[in-house]
């Protein structure tokens, strides 16, 4: 079984974006926590223990939202205390925490998306929208790497060539701007060369095709259909209000019936897909290795 990231980028991004969008769609703590856990686990699975800064920011958000929301939000009836004559309510605190969890979960899903979508995969996706746009996008991506290197070079050169004057505050401030100006001049002149190189190789001579190594295999189609079906199974009950929870003025939970469990269950399956693929791949490798 192929790992999740080698599947067709369109199928992969449909899965990731649906997982993120359904999270956006609801305010039900159980579903949000499942979403956060799955997004977080897949991220950790791919990146290992690193990215402490990102975890700190993403997981700090719920706490921050919980504490801050009651400051702006006077809804709710259970007053905890008064701050500058404004009521600080339990309901607002809960609501803040829930929206915080929602944001954290979405952040992890988006982060997984941008980690998985390398430039060639993005090119493949943009192509559906517009081939021309896809090309502008790739060239821009390439330029970003190029410009960052060049900017670093310019900064060093400016220093080593003695073009900063000593003890000149205005000059120091102008430094950053000058680096950018030099980069700009260089970038525009270079752009013209790139454009000639493109037309020399026949760009704009007629209908063009796009080379890609991605195909639709049965596995990809299954992944796509599975994502769509699970999303539908989750979204339909949600649309009928199966997860509708009132927060203000008092917390009213949704009706825990078939619709509730269908929505949460289907979403759980959807959010687990990347992990399931990763797990099966690990198992396959393990058994292959033991056979050897």
């Amino acid at each position, binding site marked *: 079984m192929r790992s999740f990231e080698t599947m067709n980028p369109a199928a992969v991004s449909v899965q990731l974006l649906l997982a993120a969008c359904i999270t956006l769609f609801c305010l039900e703590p159980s579903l949000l926590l499942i979403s956060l856990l799955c997004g977080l686990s897949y991220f950790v699975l791919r990146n290992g223990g690193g990215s402490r800064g990102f975890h700190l920011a993403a997981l700090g958000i719920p706490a921050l939202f919980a504490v801050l929301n009651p400051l702006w939000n006077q809804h709710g009836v259970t007053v905890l205390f008064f701050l500058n004559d404004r009521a600080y309510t339990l309901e607002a605190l809960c609501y803040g925490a829930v929206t915080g969890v929602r944001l954290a979960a979405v952040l992890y899903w988006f982060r997984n998306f941008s980690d998985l979508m390398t430039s060639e995969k993005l090119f493949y996706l943009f192509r559906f929208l517009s081939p021309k746009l896809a090309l502008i996008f790739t060239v821009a*991506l390439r330029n970003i790497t190029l410009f960052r290197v060049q900017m670093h070079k310019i900064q060093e050169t400016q220093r*080593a060539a003695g073009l900063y004057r000593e003890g000149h505050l205005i000059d120091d401030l102008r430094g950053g701007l000058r680096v950018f100006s030099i980069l700009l001049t260089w970038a525009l002149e270079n752009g013209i060369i790139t454009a000639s190189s493109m037309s020399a190789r026949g760009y704009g*001579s007629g209908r063009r095709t796009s080379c890609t190594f991605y195909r639709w295999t049965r596995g990809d189609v299954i992944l796509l259909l599975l994502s769509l079906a699970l999303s539908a199974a989750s979204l339909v009950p949600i649309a009928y209000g199966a997860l509708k929870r009132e927060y203000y003025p008092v917390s009213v939970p949704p009706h825990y019936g078939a619709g509730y469990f269908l929505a949460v269950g289907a979403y759980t399956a959807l959010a687990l897909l990347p992990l399931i693929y990763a797990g099966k791949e690990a198992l396959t490798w393990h058994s292959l290795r033991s056979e050897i």
Partner: protein
Amino acid sequence: MAQLAVRNLTVTYPECSTPVVSAVSFSLEAGEFAVLCGATGCGKTTLLRMLKQELRPKCTQSGTVTFAGVPLGGLDARRSASEIGFVMQHPEQQIVTDRVWHELAFGLENLGTEIAVMQRRIAEIASYFGIEDLLERDPATLSGGQKQLLNLASVMIMQPRLLLLDEPTAQLDPIAASDFLTTLQRLNRDFSTTILIAEHRLEEVIPIADRLLVMEKGRLIADAAPREVLRRLPQDAPVLGGMPAAVRLWYEAGGEGEVPLSVAEARRTLMPQFANTVRALPEKPAPPLTEPAAELREAWFRYERRGRDVLTGLSLTVSTGEFYCLIGGNGAGKSTVLRVLSGVSQCYAGEVRVFGKRLREYKGRSLHQGCVTLLPQDVGTLFLCNTAEEELREVDKHFSEKLRDFPFDLSPYLAMHPYDLSGGQQQILALAKVMLTEPRLLLLDEPTKGLDAASKAQLAEVLHGLNARGVTVLCVTHDIEFAACHADRCGFLSRGTLIAADTPAAVFSGNAFYTTAASRISRGFYDRAVTVADAAALCRQNGRRKGDAACS
């Protein structure tokens, strides 16, 4: 029918009165390998661009260009794109996408090729060029030579019949340049691709060319087999400066018979023509060692904590007022020496002194004020204004007074845009710009890259002029001919240590492989003749061998 035929082509740019290309006629047969040479600004680039419909500049023109019998303008857009390939000078800027395989596919995509066919072509061309391992890489991570090979491959994948190249090796180091030319020769031999290449580094390309076209001031002054052209060139033709050492020696020493094109030919046919009893010119005394301007003692440096050492206990002394060239292969640590001396990077062990003071003792930016300055390899990292004058004024409003002593008259170029200047002029403008900070130690990184022989001579003159005004020049270069001709002293760097440091004559006559072509030609016949001028002087001093006329 000729593959390419140019009849009476005249090209004039909109704002100019004189044509850049005037009444040029020539034709190339399929499978020919032709070299187009001439001084900078002689119209080579314009002529080449006129041969490719998509790249024609804004201009008025007369005359015709036909490709396989069809006028260029009447060629179908796709046929024109695929059958006439064009490779430009700068490796980096021609690359469009951010994956090697995608770059190869780019041309085919434009032609609307089927995906299956594309994948097959990519596999084929990658194997021919030996770049399979690079397919998944981002081109930004490749070396200059690899990038240029990628550019060539992504043109060749469209199977062109005619390949036009505009100074493709100018930005490459000698090894990469030589690899590139070898690949070109292979393409010409294996697929009979017609090649027209504009170059001013001719040492290696002349021996493999079938045809040599020489341009001067927009006119084609010669067009024949290389040997024939070279025999008839006037003694003072400007293009001679860029010719192989063998050819220049033949001219300067007054050789007879066939013009030798390579070192081996010169040793076989030219050197035996002279009596060769005097073996050496009187030895020039080494310039006296004065107060050191820059000094490294047991310097150790690495870029990353766990990386390899780039400088391994390097000790190096540059005397005040001299012109010191540091030579060595790729990765020898040449540029690193400049970074360390200019304070951009710090050694982790050892001592670095500039004018007797430790680098650390220069507080704030005092090191770069009136003391040390580094002229970068890529002068594009310096320019930001619309004219050369603004460029200088940007550093110092009173630039004209400060540059009164500058050994080059910049006034004709002041109104021009920096990017419209030729490579050599850009280099000198950049030099003027950094000289405005009045440094006493000038560090140069590969200043001759992309310059033709005349510009190199001009640059050397400027640098000697600065020397005469008391400026110390430390220059890092791959260009050993330049070092041999112009340096007061040379240092030969390898793997982070100094292998030899002496006068150019001593260093290059001591080296057997990493040495000038003139030294390789004269080895065994003469001692310490490392420049063409020295070797020619010895030849003339010895005189022709008597009764040897029949031989030649």
